[in-house]
């Protein structure tokens, strides 16, 4: 702990889901619209307690997940930092409005606590089956930021990060948790005010008659005023021109689409978050995320004890896929092990980046059980 005169940090023994709420409130979340679904419901329940007590907090239970996302986008357009949380079946329903949020560039955070699937699947068991859905679930070509967290403290931190990225790049951000991370209680430390950064969306400062809601800027992100602040403009899910009016002129359509990709792609280094553990000299590197990264860490330690130079690349950003980080470990590791609670949704990204350089070994499990350290250790020893 830092100098004694500084205020002591608050500690809690909390669920991953509760930590998400703590993070969201620190980040300035003032709107939650949702529909309860296991294993994400604690997020909604705690929000229902906390938000009405906040100065400007609004909590709303909607009739389904489609409506939840609609309300969240509406609140976002009205100037709130808004979020929702769900699990697989609800995530499928939210895809419609996830695309709308991309198109109208509405900042919001969507937490998906992954369970076994497809369909109703395994409601109370962990899985990581929604990774590619988070990236490509909504129709049409679009950019998407997808984050993950592997322990309870990270749930708090990554929720703050998710809000910051959403506001910075005017985009929906998906935070993928799995049932284990969400339902594990651990000690978390609430950071002091000076220990975390909060980013608020840029609002226009020019007179309303000059304002063009979807105009090009240096960062590719147009300023965004809240509804009712004097900047009257049109928001539409149709392809639109810089004024926000529907257009099908090829050059205007191309400009919009390219800007929406560029606004995220040009900040790849800032968006790509990961942690390296014993990677520097690793011959075998495990690439993992979510609760599986915890098993992987244990396995890496055990492999080192047995004389194998193993390392762990823990992904915190899943999309845009952290290509540079993966290429870096490939520089010296001759084999990569990618354990996932799915049939290989990130290992295909690793293989794509790898392009034949190293051996990529996917380790998959889809029976609703976490991948254990010994399974990963076995794979490390084999490759």
């Amino acid at each position, binding site marked *: 702990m830092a100098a004694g005169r500084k205020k002591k940090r608050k500690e809690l023994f909390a669920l991953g889901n509760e930590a998400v709420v703590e993070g969201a409130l620190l980040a300035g979340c003032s709107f939650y619209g949702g529909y309860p679904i296991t294993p994400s419901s604690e997020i909604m329940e705690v929000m229902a307690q906390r938000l009405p007590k906040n100065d400007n907090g609004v909590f709303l239970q909607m009739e389904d997940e489609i409506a939840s996302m609609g309300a969240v986008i509406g609140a976002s357009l009205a100037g709130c930092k808004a979020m929702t949380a769900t699990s697989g079946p609800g995530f499928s329903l939210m895809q419609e409005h996830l695309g709308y949020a991309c198109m109208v560039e509405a900042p919001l955070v969507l937490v998906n606590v992954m369970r076994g699937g497809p369909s109703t699947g395994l409601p109370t068991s962990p899985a990581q089956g929604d990774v590619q859905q988070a990236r490509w679930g909504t129709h049409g070509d679009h950019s998407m930021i997808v984050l993950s967290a592997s322990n309870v403290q990270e749930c708090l931190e990554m929720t703050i990060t998710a809000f910051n990225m959403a506001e910075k790049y005017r985009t929906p951000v998906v935070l993928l948790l799995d049932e284990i991370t969400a339902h594990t209680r651990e*000690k978390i430390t609430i950071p002091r005010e000076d220990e975390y950064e909060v980013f608020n969306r840029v609002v226009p400062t020019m007179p309303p008659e000059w304002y063009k809601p979807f105009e090009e800027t240096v960062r590719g992100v147009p300023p965004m005023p809240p509804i009712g602040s004097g900047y009257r403009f049109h928001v539409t899910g149709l392809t639109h021109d810089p004024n926000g009016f529907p257009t099908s002129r090829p050059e205007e359509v191309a400009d919009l689409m390219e800007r929406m990709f560029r606004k995220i792609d040009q900040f790849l280094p800032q968006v790509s978050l990961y942690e390296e553990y014993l990677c520097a000299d690793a011959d075998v590197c495990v690439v993992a995320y979510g609760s599986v990264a915890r098993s992987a860490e244990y396995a890496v330690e055990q492999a080192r004890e047995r004389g194998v130079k193993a390392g762990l690349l823990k992904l915190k950003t899943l999309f845009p896929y952290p290509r540079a980080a993966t290429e870096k470990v490939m520089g010296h590791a001759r084999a990569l092990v990618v354990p996932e609670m799915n049939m290989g949704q990130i290992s295909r990204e690793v293989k794509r980046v790898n392009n034949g350089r190293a051996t990529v070994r996917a380790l998959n499990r889809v029976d609703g059980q976490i991948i254990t350290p010994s399974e990963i250790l076995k794979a490390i020893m084999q490759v």
Partner: protein
Amino acid sequence: MKQGVNLERFEIRLSGLGGQGIITLGRVLGAGLALGHGYQVTQTQSYGPEARGGSSRCDLVVSSGKISYPKAQSLDLLVALSQEACNAYYSFLKPGGILVLETDLVRQPPTNLYLGLPFTEMAASKVGIVQAMNTIVLGAISYLLPFVEQRIMRSSLQSALPAKIRDVNTKAFNLGHREAKREFGEQPEIWKGKPEEREGSDI
């Protein structure tokens, strides 16, 4: 916060029937160890559409250092408050691990090496409410675990409860601790800080 004993990785499973307050017990124990004693703790539990009277389970992993794998798989302490739970989880005890039973509810212990008290009956007759049974168990565990300080765990318990039921639970906690001291004898030697003995257990 100072940690009394250096722990490598200590695994506890609390198990029994839904409605016995297993999960609450785990939460209070976990919060006491994590916030009061300064250990790293992960607490997981069985989730499912379990009705009251169904099975219930709560796992804790306690360590002085970082806990990578959050689930319990090789138990140092198993608390079984029902026959069914005892049958299901006894095999997860590691060699030398300790089994604590509810002696009225587990009539057929799988081994003679166990510690037991009639927790439910104690709650009914000595505290006056059956619901305080889990707090008596907490008191007993607090005695049993050499790295738990009774005082810290008790205040952690008190801070977790609403004022209305604080006194009765404090009474239950003290009762559990006292009875365990009388019935269980010395705290298990192997837990008193020789972590190297437990190393090498492959998981």
